[in-house]
C-alpha cells in the first residue's frame, strides 16, 4: 500500500505545484504560443511512430513466426536486440551518420527503429502460441484464407498490438535524449530546458501537467481498444504448431525486408559505435569510463534491490488471494509509473526542496525516482512468477502447520525466485540506461554512463561518447534474452 501511494505521489505533487499560484495563471502558462507547437509536435510524433511501429512490428512478427522464412531463431533475436540500444544512443549515431537529420522526420525515423520491438515482441509471442485448431475451425466454417487471417489471427493478435503500441506511446511521451539531440521539441524536452535554463520548476510543472494528461489519454485509449473480449484458449488438448505459410519465390524479398530492418536498427548503431570506439585518441575530453560505470552499477543495484523488495508485499497479497486489493494496488502502481520520468523527477525536486531540503541532490532521491519509474517491471515479473505457483501448494503448507506468512516464505517465495530475479535484472538494466531523471536528480559530481555519454555527445565529441554508449549496450544485452525467455503475456519493458 505504501508503495502504491509513493508511486501516485509524483502526479499529485506536480499538479499541486502547477496550481500553486492559482488556476488562472496556470491556464495562461499553458496557452502561451509555444505550448501549441509542443502539443502538435508531440501528438504528430506519437501518431506517426505508433502507425509505423505497428506496421513494422506486426509485419516482421508474421514473417518470422508464420512463414517459411529461413533462420527464424536468428531473426527473433535480431529484431528484439534494438531494445538493448538506448534511443538516445541510437539518435546520436544517426545524427553523426546523417548530419542533416533533424526535426519530425529524423525523430520519427530514430524512434521507430528504437521502439518497433515493443510491438514485435508481444505479437510474435501470440503468433507463436496461437493454436492452429482455431484457424482450421474457421476454414471448416467456410472462411477463406484471407478472411481467416483477418477475422481469427488479427483478432487474436489485437490485444498484443494494443499493448505494444501503448508502450511505444508512453515511451515517446517521456523520451528526452533522442529528441533533444535531433532538435525536435516536445513537452518532455521543453520541461527539461525550462528547468536547466531558467531553473523554473513551476512552469515546468504546468507543462508536466499537460504531459500527465496526455499519458492518461494514451492509457484510456489503450483501455478502450482492449475492449472486454476474452482471448483465453478454451478447452484442453495440446496446442498444435501452425503450418507456416510458404514464401516460395518471395523468400529473398522477405529476407531483404527483415535484414534491412535489423541492420538499420541494430547494425548501424553497433557499426558506428565500434568505429568510434577504436579511435579513443580523437577524444577531446578525457574518458572516465570506470567511475561512471561504478556509480551506474551502484545506483542500478540499489534501485533494483529496493524495487524488488518493494514488490514482495504485493506478491504476498497476491499469494493470499486477496484479489481486489492486489488488483487495485497493481493498477495504481502501473498507472503512476506510466508517468514520464521527467514528471517523477520534477515532483521529487519539488518535494525535497519544499519539505526535506537536506535530501535535495542526494543519491537517495535518485534511487527513489528509479524505483517509482521502474517498479512495474519488477512487479510484472514477480506477479507472474508467484501466480505460477499453484495455490494448492500453499494449502498443503498450511495443512502441515505453517501460518500464511511462513507458507509464503517457505513455499511460494522459493518457487518464484527465478521470476523475481528476472524482475531484478530488468530494473537493473532500465536504471543503467536511464537519462532523463538522472540528468535532473543526480547529485553534483555523480556521473553515470548515460549522463557521461550525454555530456560528451552534447559537444559532439563522438570518440569520447562511444565507450559509455558501448558499456550501456553491453549492460543491456541480457535484456534481449530476458524478454525472449519471458512467457508472460504482458510486455516487461
Amino acid at each position: 500500500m505504501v508503495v502504491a501511494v509513493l508511486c501516485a505521489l509524483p502526479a499529485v505533487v506536480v499538479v499541486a505545484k502547477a496550481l500553486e499560484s492559482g488556476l488562472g495563471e496556470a491556464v495562461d502558462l499553458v496557452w502561451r504560443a509555444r505550448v501549441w507547437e509542443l502539443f502538435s509536435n508531440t501528438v504528430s510524433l506519437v501518431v506517426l511512430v505508433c502507425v509505423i511501429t505497428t506496421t513494422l512490428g506486426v509485419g516482421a512478427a508474421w514473417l518470422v513466426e508464420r512463414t517459411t522464412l529461413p533462420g527464424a531463431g536468428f531473426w527473433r533475436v535480431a529484431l528484439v536486440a534494438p531494445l538493448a540500444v538506448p534511443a538516445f544512443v541510437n539518435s546520436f549515431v544517426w545524427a553523426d551518420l546523417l548530419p542533416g537529420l533533424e526535426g519530425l522526420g529524423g525523430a520519427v525515423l530514430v524512434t521507430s527503429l528504437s521502439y518497433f520491438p515493443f510491438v514485435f515482441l508481444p505479437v510474435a509471442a501470440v503468433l507463436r502460441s496461437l493454436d492452429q485448431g482455431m484457424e482450421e475451425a474457421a476454414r471448416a466454417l467456410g472462411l477463406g484464407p484471407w478472411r481467416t487471417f483477418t477475422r481469427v489471427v488479427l483478432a487474436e493478435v489485437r490485444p498484443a498490438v494494443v499493448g505494444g503500441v501503448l508502450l511505444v506511446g508512453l515511451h515517446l511521451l517521456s523520451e528526452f535524449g533522442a529528441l533533444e539531440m535531433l532538435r525536435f521539441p516536445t513537452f518532455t524536452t521543453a520541461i527539461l530546458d525550462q528547468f536547466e535554463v531558467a531553473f523554473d520548476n513551476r512552469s515546468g510543472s504546468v507543462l508536466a501537467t499537460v504531459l500527465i494528461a496526455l499519458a492518461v489519454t494514451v492509457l484510456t485509449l489503450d483501455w478502450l481498444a482492449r475492449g472486454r473480449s476474452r482471448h483465453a484458449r478454451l478447452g484442453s488438448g495440446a496446442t498444435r504448431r501452425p503450418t507456416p505459410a510458404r514464401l516460395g519465390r518471395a523468400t529473398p524479398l522477405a529476407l531483404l525486408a527483415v535484414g534491412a530492418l535489423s541492420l538499420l536498427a541494430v547494425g548501424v548503431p553497433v557499426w558506428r559505435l565500434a568505429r568510434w570506439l577504436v579511435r579513443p585518441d580523437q577524444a577531446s575530453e578525457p574518458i572516465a569510463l570506470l567511475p561512471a560505470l561504478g556509480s551506474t552499477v551502484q545506483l542500478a543495484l540499489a534501485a533494483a534491490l529496493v524495487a524488488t523488495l518493494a514488490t514482495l508485499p504485493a506478491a504476498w497479497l497476491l499469494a493470499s488471494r486477496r484479489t481486489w486489493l492486489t488488483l487495485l494496488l497493481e493498477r495504481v502502481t502501473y498507472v503512476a509509473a506510466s508517468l514520464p520520468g521527467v514528471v517523477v523527477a520534477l515532483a521529487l525536486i519539488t518535494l525535497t526542496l519544499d519539505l526535506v531540503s537536506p535530501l535535495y541532490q542526494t543519491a537517495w532521491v535518485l534511487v527513489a525516482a528509479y524505483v517509482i519509474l521502474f517498479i512495474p517491471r519488477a512487479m510484472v515479473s514477480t506477479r507472474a512468477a508467484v501466480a505460477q505457483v499453484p495455490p494448492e501448494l500453499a494449502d498443503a503448507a498450511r495443512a502441515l502447520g505453517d501460518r500464511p506468512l511462513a507458507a509464503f516464505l517457505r513455499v511460494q517465495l522459493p518457487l518464484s525466485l527465478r521470476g523475481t530475479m528476472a524482475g531484478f535484472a530488468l530494473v537493473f538494466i532500465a536504471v543503467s540506461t536511464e537519462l532523463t531523471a538522472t540528468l535532473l536528480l543526480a547529485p553534483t559530481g555523480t556521473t553515470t554512463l548515460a549522463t557521461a555519454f550525454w555530456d560528451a555527445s552534447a559537444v559532439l565529441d563522438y570518440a569520447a561518447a562511444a565507450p559509455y554508449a558501448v558499456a550501456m549496450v553491453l549492460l543491456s544485452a541480457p535484456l534481449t534474452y530476458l524478454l525472449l525467455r519471458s512467457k508472460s503475456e504482458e510486455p516487461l519493458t
Partner: protein
Amino acid sequence: MKALHLSGITASHQGTRVLHGIDLSVPAGTTTAVLGPSGCGKTTLLRVIAGFLRPDTGEVRVGDEVVVGDDTWVAPEKRGLGYVAQEGNLFPHLSVAGNITYGLSRRDRRARSRVGELLELVGLPADLGTRRPDQLSGGQQQRVALARALARRPDVVLLDEPFSALDPALRVATREAVAAALAHERATVVLVTHDQAEALSFADQIAVMRDGVVTQAGPPAEVYERPKDRLAASSLGEACFVPGTVHDGVVTCALGVLSVPGGDGFTGACDVLLRPEQLRLSEPGETGTVGACIGEVVKAQYFGHDALVQLRIAGAPDAPVVVAARTFGATVPTVGSRVAVSVDGPPHLLPATTTS
C-alpha cells in the same frame, strides 16, 4: 485418535450455496468415504473441515474441540489435520525427505527424523528421501504426500480423491498401500471420491452425497444393499428399478412374484431394486426355470471377467421393463436371443416414483 463431528454445515463458493446442511460423524480410528458425483460439494466439504474455506453456518469438532463454530475459528495450521490432495501437491523445490519433514520442528527437520520409517510405512524404499518429487511416479508422489501428512501424527487425515489421477493398475496398488499405512497409524480418515469401488473397499462408513447434502450414511454393505433412494442405489453400482406392488410380504412385478421378508415396511406400489448380480440367466425350458420370466437380449457388453446383458422383460405389455444382468463365464447371450431370468435373494424395495 479423535473422532470428527460435523453438524449443520452450509457453505458457499463464489456466491453460490454449495453445501446445504451437512451432518456427519466419523468415529475415532475409522474411515469414512464421502461418495458423490463431481460438483456435489464433496471437495468443498473437505476444504471446510481442513480450514481452507469458512462455512456460512455449522460446527466442526475434532474430538472435543470445536474448530469451527458460531464464534470459533481455528486456523488450518492449528487443527492438527493431515491433508492429501488429488495431485499430491508435493513441494517441487524440496527433496522427498524435505517434503516429509516439512511440518516438523526445525530440530526434527535437521535430524531428518522418521523419514525412513515413514517411507517404509507407505510402502516405499527408505532410501528414496534424496530424490526430487519430479523423479517419482504418480503413485509414489501420492504415497510421499501421505507420508508427509502422517509425519505430524494428525488426529484426522483428509484424502481428496488421492487416487483418481493415477492409472488403474497403479490405483489399486497405491490404494492398498495407503490403506495399510492408515490402518497402522489407526488414523481417523475422511476420503472423498466419486469411485464406488474405491469407497466400498476402503471405508468403514460410506456417506452418499448429492447436491450438497448427505442423503445416506452407513456401513458399505448396508448402503449397497439397502439404499434409501434411487440415486444412493445408483451411485454405488449398476442398479435397475422395476415397478411393483407389495402385499403381505410378497412383491409382484414384471419378474414375477418375489418374497420380501418383512415387506420392508411397504404396502402397495413400490420400486424393486435389482442389482445385476442378483439376476440369473438360463436357457428357456431348462429344469429349475419354472416360475422364471422370459427376457429378450437387447444389448450385451463384454468386459472379459464378466459381461453385462440388457434384457427387455415382456411382463408389462404397455411399458416393457429393461433390466441388466451380470453373467460370468465364457458364454454371452447374443442380441435378440431369449433367455429365462430368475431373481436370486430377496430384493430391496424403494418408495415408488413416477419417473423411471
